[in-house]
C-alpha cells in the first residue's frame, strides 16, 4: 500500500518539541559570535515633516556603535517613480511605526536606552486614516503624485443596464477590516559580511531567493554576493514574503560597521510595522429574479494600501475572483487603491481572495433575504455546474474542476441543516433572547496563481539515502514530510532514509518559495519530476548492470529494488547498488517544474452561532467544512492546514481588527489590545472530506494553505447576521463584537418602532 494518503506524523516535530526550533534569534553560528544588536527608532506620529534628527546624545550612550538615519544611507528609494518608499524615513513620515533611524549597540539591553535618546523633531501634518478621507484628497501623502489614488483597475464606468430585467436589486457596502497577520515569531534578521565580500543574511522569510534578489538590488551588489538563509520560521501567513526594508538597512549597517548585526523586533513594532492584511471596503450590487436566479453582479473595491503601496495586486485579485462559485450572466468590477497614513498592507492568508468571497457571500445572503428564500437554495440555483468545467469566469479566471453543489450538500447534511433551522424557529417562537444563527459560505479560490514554477532536486547516494532540495519554503506546514512521502512512494525508499532541505540560497539557488498555497502543487510536482528523472537515470544504469534492455526493467516501488520483468527475484538491485555505479558518485536530478498553472480549490462551510441579544455576545458553536483540494498526501497535515485556516478566518469575523484613532495613532499595537483569537473562543472543527483532482499538475493536487480561511470568515459573519435577521438586522460589519451586535440591534429596533 502506498504511503501517500496515509496519516504520517511529521518528521519536523521531534526537534521542535524537545529542543525548540532554531529561529533567527536562536542562531549561534560562528559568523554571528560577537554580533552587535540593532533596533529601529520608529515614528510615533502618523504624518509629519521631519524638521531634524539629533543623534548626538544617542551616539554617546553606553555601548552605542552607530546611529544611522536616511542621510547616512545613500540608498536609492524603492520603487522608482512617484511613490517611493524610503529605507529610513526621509523628510516625511507617513505612518506610526515607520522606521526613522537605526541604533546599533554592543549589548541588547543597551538598545532601548540609546534609542530613547534619538531626538526627532516632527512637524505634524494632517493624518489620512480612512479610505473616504484618502479619496477626498484634501491631504495628499505623495503631493508629487497628485492624488491619494495609486491604482485604478477594471470598469472605467459602471453600466446600470446590467441590472435591466432584475426583479430585485440589493446594494450593500461590506467592510473587510484591516487585520494583523501576527505570526507568533515576529520579524528578525542577522547580517554578516565575510572577508570574501559576501553578505550572509539570516532572515525570517518565506522566500530566501526573492529576499536575495531584493537585498542585492537595494545594496547595489550582485546576487552572487548575497547568501540568504531562512532558518526555522515561526509562521508567516504572507507577511514574510521576501525581505522587508529593515533587512536592507541591517545589511547596510553591518557593512558600514564591519561587524555582524542582528535584529529582532518587539511585538509592538510588529503590530505597527509588519504589513497588515485585508483592508478593503467593497460595495456589492446584486440583482435577479424572485425564483433565486441572479442576473447581474457588480463589485466595487476600494483597497486601503496603507502608507506605501507594497502589493497592488491584492484588489485586482479580488476582482479576478469576484463571482466565486456562481454563473452570473452579467458582471462588472472595478478597484481603486488609495494610500492612507497607516501601516502598509500586504498579503495575509488568502490575500485578495477572502475579500472577494466575503463580498459575494454577503451579497448572496442579502439577495436571499430580500426575496425570502433560504440562502442554501439561492446558492444551489446559481452554482456553476460540474459539466461547465473548465469554466471561463467573466472576470478572466479559468476554473479547472469543481463540484460546488455537492460540497454544500455534504456540509448541510453533516451539520443537520434542517434540524438547525427548526431549532432556530423554535427559539424565535419561544422568545429566547439567545438566537441561533446559521451562516453559509461557498467558495472557490486560486492557488499557485503567480504563474511561476518551482525547483526540485533529488540525490540518491551509494548508501541508499535520499536527499531532496525543494524551492518551496515550509514554515510550519509540514511540507517536508509530505515531500518525503511523495519520494518514498515513488522510489520505494523508507521515510527515515529521506532528508528534505530548503531555505539556503547557496544550496537552492533558484526558487520561488512559499505563498499563495503554491507549495505542494508546484514544489511537490518539481520533486516528483526530479524523482522521475532519477528513476530514468537509474533504469539505464540498472540495465547495464543486469545486462538487460532498459525497457525490460522495472522499479518495484514496494521494495525499492530494480528487477528484470519476469526474471527470478534473486537478480535485483537496490538503490544503493545502482547509485554506487552512477557517474559522479550519486544519482542526481535538478529540475524546474515550469508548468505552473493555477488551480482552484473550493468548498463550503456552515457556521452555527449563538447570539445573546441582551449582551451582544456571539459564541461560535460549530463550524462544518468541506475544503476540496484534490488528492490528499498526508491527511494529518492537510487537516492541520484547514484547522489553522478555520481559526484565522473565524477570528476575523468574530474578533480581530486593527484600529486607529482619528489622528492615525494605532490603538491595537500590543497583544493586550489586539484581539488575537484564543482557544477559548473557538469550537472543535468538523471536517468533511471531498476529493476532486485537477489536471493542471503532476500530482492532481490543489493548494490547501489558505482555503479554509476564505470560507470561514463569511460563514461566521453570515451566521451572526442570520441570528439577528428576525430582529430586523440586515447587515453588520466585522468583527461582530458585542458592542457592534448591540448597536445593530438598537438601530434595527428603532427602525421597527417607527
Amino acid at each position, binding site marked *: 500500500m502506498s504511503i501517500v494518503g496515509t496519516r504520517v*506524523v*511529521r518528521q*519536523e*516535530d*521531534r526537534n*521542535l*518539541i*524537545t*529542543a*525548540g*526550533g*532554531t*529561529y533567527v*534569534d*536562536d542562531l*549561534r553560528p560562528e559568523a554571528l559570535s560577537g554580533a552587535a544588536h540593532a533596533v529601529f527608532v520608529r515614528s510615533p506620529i502618523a504624518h509629519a515633516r521631519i524638521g531634524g534628527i539629533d543623534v548626538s546624545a544617542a551616539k554617546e550612550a553606553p555601548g552605542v556603535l552607530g546611529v544611522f538615519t536616511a542621510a547616512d544611507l545613500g540608498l536609492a528609494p524603492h520603487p522608482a517613480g512617484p511613490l517611493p518608499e524610503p529605507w529610513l524615513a526621509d523628510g516625511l513620515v507617513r505612518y506610526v511605526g515607520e522606521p526613522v533611524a537605526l541604533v546599533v549597540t554592543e549589548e*541588547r*539591553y543597551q538598545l532601548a536606552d540609546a534609542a530613547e535618546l534619538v531626538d526627532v523633531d516632527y512637524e505634524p501634518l494632517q493624518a489620512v486614516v480612512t479610505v473616504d478621507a484618502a479619496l477626498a484628497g484634501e491631504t495628499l501623502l505623495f503631493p508629487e503624485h497628485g492624488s491619494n489614488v495609486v491604482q485604478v483597475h477594471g470598469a472605467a464606468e459602471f453600466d446600470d443596464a446590467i441590472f435591466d430585467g432584475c426583479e430585485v436589486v440589493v446594494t450593500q457596502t461590506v467592510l473587510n477590516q484591516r487585520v494583523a497577520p*501576527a*505570526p*507568533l*515569531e*515576529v520579524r528578525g534578521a542577522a547580517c554578516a559580511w565575510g572577508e570574501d565580500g559576501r553578505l550572509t543574511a539570516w532572515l525570517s522569510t518565506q522566500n530566501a531567493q526573492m529576499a536575495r534578489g531584493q537585498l542585492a538590488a537595494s545594496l547595489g551588489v550582485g546576487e552572487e554576493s548575497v547568501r540568504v538563509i531562512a532558518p*526555522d*520560521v*515561526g*509562521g508567516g*501567513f504572507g507577511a514574510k514574503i521576501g525581505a522587508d526594508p529593515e533587512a536592507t538597512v541591517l545589511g547596510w549597517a553591518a557593512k558600514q560597521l564591519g561587524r555582524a548585526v542582528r535584529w529582532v523586533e*518587539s*511585538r*509592538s513594532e510588529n503590530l505597527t510595522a509588519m504589513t497588515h492584511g485585508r483592508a478593503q471596503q467593497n460595495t456589492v450590487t446584486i440583482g435577479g429574479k424572485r425564483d433565486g436566479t441572479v442576473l447581474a453582479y457588480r463589485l466595487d473595491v476600494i483597497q486601503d494600501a496603507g502608507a506605501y503601496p507594497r502589493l497592488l495586486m491584492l484588489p485586482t485579485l479580488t476582482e479576478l475572483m469576484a463571482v466565486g462559485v456562481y454563473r452570473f450572466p452579467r458582471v462588472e468590477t472595478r478597484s481603486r487603491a488609495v494610500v492612507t497614513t497607516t501601516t502598509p498592507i500586504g498579503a495575509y492568508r488568502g490575500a485578495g481572495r477572502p475579500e472577494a468571497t466575503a463580498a459575494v457571500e454577503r451579497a448572496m445572503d442579502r439577495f436571499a433575504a430580500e426575496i425570502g428564500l433560504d440562502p442554501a437554495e439561492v446558492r444551489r440555483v446559481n452554482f456553476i455546474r460540474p459539466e461547465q468545467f473548465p469554466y471561463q469566469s467573466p472576470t478572466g479566471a479559468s476554473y479547472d474542476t469543481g463540484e460546488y453543489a455537492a460540497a454544500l450538500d455534504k456540509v448541510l447534511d453533516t451539520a443537520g441543516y434542517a434540524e438547525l433551522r427548526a431549532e432556530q424557529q423554535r427559539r424565535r417562537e419561544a422568545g429566547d433572547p439567545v438566537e441561533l444563527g446559521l451562516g453559509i459560505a461557498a467558495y472557490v479560490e486560486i492557488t499557485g496563481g503567480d504563474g511561476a514554477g518551482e525547483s526540485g532536486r533529488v540525490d540518491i547516494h551509494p548508501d541508499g539515502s535520499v536527499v531532496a532540495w525543494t524551492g518551496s519554503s515550509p*514554515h*510550519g*506546514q*509540514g511540507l517536508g514530510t509530505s515531500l518525503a512521502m511523495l519520494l518514498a512512494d515513488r522510489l520505494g525508499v523508507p521515510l527515515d532514509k529521506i532528508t528534505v532541505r530548503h531555505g539556503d540560497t547557496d544550496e537552492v539557488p533558484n526558487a520561488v518559495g512559499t505563498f499563495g498555497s503554491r507549495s505542494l502543487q508546484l514544489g511537490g510536482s518539481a520533486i516528483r519530476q526530479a524523482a522521475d528523472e532519477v528513476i530514468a537515470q537509474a533504469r539505464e544504469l540498472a540495465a547495464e548492470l543486469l545486462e538487460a534492455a532498459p525497457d525490460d526493467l522495472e522499479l518495484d516501488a514496494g521494495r525499492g529494488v530494480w528487477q528484470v520483468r519476469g526474471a527470478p527475484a534473486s537478480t535485483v538491485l537496490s538503490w544503493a547498488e545502482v547509485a554506487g555505479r552512477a557517474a559522479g558518485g550519486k544519482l542526481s536530478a535538478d529540475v524546474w517544474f515550469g508548468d505552473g498553472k493555477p488551480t482552484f480549490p473550493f468548498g463550503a462551510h456552515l457556521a452555527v452561532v449563538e447570539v445573546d441579544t441582551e449582551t451582544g455576545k456571539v459564541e461560535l458553536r460549530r463550524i462544518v467544512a468541506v475544503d476540496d483540494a484534490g488528492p490528499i498526501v498526508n491527511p*494529518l*497535515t492537510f*487537516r*492541520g492546514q484547514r*484547522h*489553522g*485556516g*478555520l*481559526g*484565522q478566518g473565524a477570528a476575523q469575523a468574530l474578533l480581530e481588527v486593527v484600529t486607529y484613532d482619528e489622528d492615525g495613532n494605532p490603538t491595537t499595537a*500590543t*497583544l*493586550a489590545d489586539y484581539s*488575537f483569537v*484564543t*482557544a*477559548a473562543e*473557538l469550537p*472543535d*472543527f*468538523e471536517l468533511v472530506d471531498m476529493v476532486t483532482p485537477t489536471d493542471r499538475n503532476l500530482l492532481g493536487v490543489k493548494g490547501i494553505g489558505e482555503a479554509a480561511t476564505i470560507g470561514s470568515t463569511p460563514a461566521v459573519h453570515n451566521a451572526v447576521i442570520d441570528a439577528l435577521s428576525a430582529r430586523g438586522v440586515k447587515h453588520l460589519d466585522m468583527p461582530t463584537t458585542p458592542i457592534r451586535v448591540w448597536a445593530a440591534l438598537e438601530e434595527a429596533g428603532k427602525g421597527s418602532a417607527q
Partner: protein
Amino acid sequence: MKVSIEVNGRTVTDEVPDRTLLVHFLRETAGLTATNIGCDTTSCGACTVLLDGESVKSCTVLAAQADGHAVTTVEGLSGADGDLHPVQRAFREQHGLQCGFCTPGMIMASVSLLADNPRPTRDDVRAGLEGNLCRCTGYHNIVSAVIDASGQEVDR
C-alpha cells in the same frame, strides 16, 4: 547581581544586570533557546516555563526573582534516554504544532494544566490554555494533544 537558578536540574550561576528577565537568563545565560519571546505584554505565553513546578510567563519574571529556585523548560522534559514526556509525545502524535514557535510554552502550560486537572474536558483545556496563543493550528489539535496526554481517547 549574581543569580543562581537550577535549570532542568543543573545549577546555572552568573552575574547579570539587575533588570535581566528570566527568559533572557534562560536563553542567553543558560543557553537554552527553546523558550521563545512572542510579545511584550505577557499575552502570548510563548515563554511559559515551570518555576518550582508552577507555570509562569518568564518574560514577566526577573531572573533575580527566580534566584535560588528551580526552573523547568521544554529541554528538561524528556528523559535522559531521549524518551519523550507524555505531553511531548501527544503534541507530535496529534499534530498539535505547526511552526513550533508557541510550542515550548504551550507544552509547558499543558504540563501545568494536567498537573492541576489530570482528566480535563476539551472545554477545560480551552479555558486552561487561554493565555497561550497559537497562530497556526486553530487550537483544535492542541486540545486533542492535551486530551491524549491525559490518557483519554481523542474522538475528533
